[in-house]
C-alpha cells in the first residue's frame, strides 16, 4: 500500500513553535544581544564585542564554580543512579496495596517544591533546633553546615539524594515492570544466578529508562540553584557556589548583565552538548535494539 504524504500536518506544530518562540527563542536572542554589550540600565547599551566571553573563559572564579558543579554532578549521579536501581529492584513487582504504598512513599519527595526542600533541610541540619544537627552534635560530631565546607557539601548532597533518587526509582521501576514474566521463567530454567538475571535481563531492559534518568539527573543537578541557595546561600565562603548561584550573583547581585549573559550562553552550550550526546546515545541504542 502506498503511503500518503501530507505535509499539512506541520501546521499542527505551529502553536508549539509560537509558544517556544516566546518562552525560549526571544529570551535567548536577548541574552545573545546582551552578551556583546555593556549596559547600565535604561536600555542604554555599549558595544564591547567578544570581551565578556574572553573575560568569562579566563575567569578563575567561574573555573572554580565549574569545577564544583562538575564534582557535584558526578557525586550525585554516582550515588543516585545505583541507589535508584537498588531500591527499584527491591520494590514489590506485583500490583497491590503494598506496591501502591511503596510508590506513594517513594514519590512523596518529588511533590515538594525545591525551596521548601531547602527550608526543610536548612532547619533539619541546624544544631539548635534541627533533629539531624542536634543528633550529630550529641554524638560528638562537629557538624555545622554554615561554617564547615565539608558539612555544607554533605548536607546538600544528602538533600539532593533524598529529593531526586525517587525519580530514578520510579523510572527504573517502570522499566522493570515492563519485563515479561517469560524472561524470568527462562532464567529460572537455566538456573541463572541473581546477578545474571540483573546483568542479562533487567539491566538491558532498563537501559532506555536509565539513560533518560541519567540525562534528567545530569541536567537538573548541573543547573541546581534553589536548594543549595536556600540551605547555604553558596557558602561557607564560596564552597557551595555552583554555576547557577554564581550566575545569579553576577547578573542580579552585581548587575553585570553583559558578563552574565556571556556566562549563561557558555553554560547553555555545555548543557546542550551533553544533552545532545545523551539523546543521540539513547536513540542510537534504541534503533540498534530494534534492528
Amino acid at each position, binding site marked *: 500500500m502506498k503511503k500518503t504524504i501530507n505535509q499539512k500536518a506541520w501546521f499542527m506544530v505551529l502553536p508549539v513553535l509560537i509558544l517556544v518562540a516566546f518562552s525560549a527563542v526571544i529570551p535567548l536572542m536577548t541574552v545573545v*544581544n546582551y552578551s*556583546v554589550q555593556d549596559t547600565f540600565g535604561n536600555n542604554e547599551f555599549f558595544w564591547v*564585542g*567578544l570581551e565578556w566571553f*574572553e573575560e568569562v573563559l579566563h575567569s578563575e572564579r567561574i573555573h572554580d564554580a565549574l569545577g564544583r558543579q562538575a564534582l557535584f554532578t558526578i557525586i550525585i549521579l554516582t550515588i543516585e543512579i545505583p541507589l535508584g536501581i537498588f531500591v527499584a529492584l527491591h520494590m514489590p513487582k506485583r500490583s497491590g496495596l503494598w506496591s501502591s504504598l511503596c510508590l506513594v512513599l517513594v514519590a512523596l519527595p518529588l511533590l515538594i517544591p525545591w525551596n521548601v526542600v531547602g527550608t526543610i533541610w536548612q532547619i533539619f541540619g541546624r544544631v539548635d533546633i534541627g533533629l539531624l544537627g542536634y543528633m550529630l552534635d550529641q554524638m560528638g560530631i562537629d557538624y555545622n553546615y554554615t561554617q564547615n565546607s565539608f558539612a555544607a557539601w554533605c548536607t546538600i548532597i544528602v538533600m539532593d539524594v533524598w529529593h531526586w533518587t525517587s525519580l530514578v526509582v520510579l523510572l527504573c521501576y517502570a522499566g522493570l515492570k515492563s519485563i515479561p514474566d517469560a524472561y524470568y521463567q527462562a532464567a529460572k530454567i537455566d538456573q541463572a544466578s541473581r546477578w545474571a538475571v540483573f546483568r542479562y535481563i533487567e539491566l538491558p531492559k532498563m537501559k532506555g529508562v536509565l539513560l533518560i534518568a541519567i540525562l534528567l539527573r545530569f541536567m537538573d543537578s548541573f543547573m541546581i540553584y534553589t536548594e543549595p541557595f536556600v540551605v547555604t546561600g553558596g557558602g561557607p565562603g564560596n564552597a557551595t557556589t555552583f554555576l547557577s548561584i554564581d550566575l545569579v550573583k553576577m547578573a542580579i547581585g552585581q548587575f553585570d548583565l553583559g558578563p552574565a549573559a556571556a556566562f549563561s550562553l557558555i553554560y547553555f*552550550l555545555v548543557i546542550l*552538548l551533553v544533552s545532545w550526546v545523551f539523546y543521540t546515545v539513547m536513540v*542510537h541504542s534504541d534503533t540498534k535494539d530494534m534492528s
Partner: protein
Amino acid sequence: MDLSWMGWTLPTAIFFISIALALVVMIIWAIKAPHAPRVGILRIETTPGDRLFISLLGSAFICLAWLAFFGSPIWEALIVCLLYAASVFKWV
C-alpha cells in the same frame, strides 16, 4: 512595537538572520531533493538537519576555544568553522 529592551545590534541580527536563512535553505533543499538518513563516521544515523545542528554546535565550541587560546578577533576561527561544517556535511 518597542524592541529596545532586547538591545539589538547589527552583528547579532546578522548572526540570527544567518541561522534563520540556513534553516530556510535546508527546508527548501529537503523539499526539492529529499534525503534519506545516512550513517557516517560517527556511526550514527543523521539527516541534513542533524548535520546542521552538529555543525552549529561544534562551531560554537570552536569559536569559544579560539577565544580562550588566541583571543579576539575570531575571523580565522570562522574559517575553521566553515571547514568543520563542510566536513560534517561530507562525512558525518
